[in-house]
């Protein structure tokens, strides 16, 4: 598999929900941050509507939710720099990696299967 090099992560967290409207994304990120705080190597994979978490200029949600943009900005502090986005989801939503608030690497459907197979632990939110 090309483009999947780099240090192997112990934990792959897959984020499939949009940042507002439910707590899925926030609670998924919480699991990633805790793992990283305990010294685990973590990768994040944004799939489906989850890629919208990476859109720039997001504020807190109108319904008293904090949103997740501030958390995403902290990922670097936690040494989480292995960020992946599902290519098909970007295309479906008309987004480009340049539109995203953090540097990410696109993943094709084939690579996706390999990523999941290679990760010792996968948590899907």
């Amino acid at each position, binding site marked *: 598999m090309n483009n999947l090099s780099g240090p192997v992560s*112990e934990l792959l967290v897959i984020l499939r929900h949009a940042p507002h409207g439910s707590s899925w994304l926030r609670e998924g990120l919480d699991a990633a941050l805790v793992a990283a705080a305990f010294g685990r190597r973590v990768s994040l994979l944004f799939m489906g509507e989850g890629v919208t978490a990476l859109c720039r200029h997001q504020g807190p949600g109108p319904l008293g939710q904090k949103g997740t943009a501030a958390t995403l900005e902290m990922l670097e502090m936690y040494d989480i720099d292995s960020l992946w986005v599902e290519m098909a989801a970007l295309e479906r939503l008309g987004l480009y990696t340049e539109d995203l608030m953090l540097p990410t690497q696109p993943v094709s459907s084939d690579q996706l299967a390999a990523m999941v197979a290679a990760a010792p632990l996968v948590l899907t939110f």
Partner: protein
Amino acid sequence: MRYAILLLGAPYSSQASHSALRFAQALVARGHRLEAVFFYHDGVQNAARLMSPPQDEPHLADVWRRLHAEHSVALLVCIATALRRGLLDEKEAARHGKLGHSVAAPFELTGLGQLIDLGLSCDRLVTFAP
């Protein structure tokens, strides 16, 4: 094999809790070891002490308790997620100045770090989501 379960669905709202329970029972029936069930997201509602379903429906919290009593399965509830949803044990209720508590042993409030440890130390972590 050593298994752990991650349950993300609320009881009675979706099939997730029922499926997780049936999977848990099948595991122990086959002689596998189920170390723990970790309740996260809306799954924490499974720990509600005051859960009172109609008598002709399975009492999910009681079935979890039985699994703990008969097979020493740890019942771990994410503390941050539980507090937000009004699920507090006696200690947390006292700390937050609340009358009464809504979580009791054998359910334990614990941190997310336990989930990561379980996932990395067990042979399989199986997630049940709504």
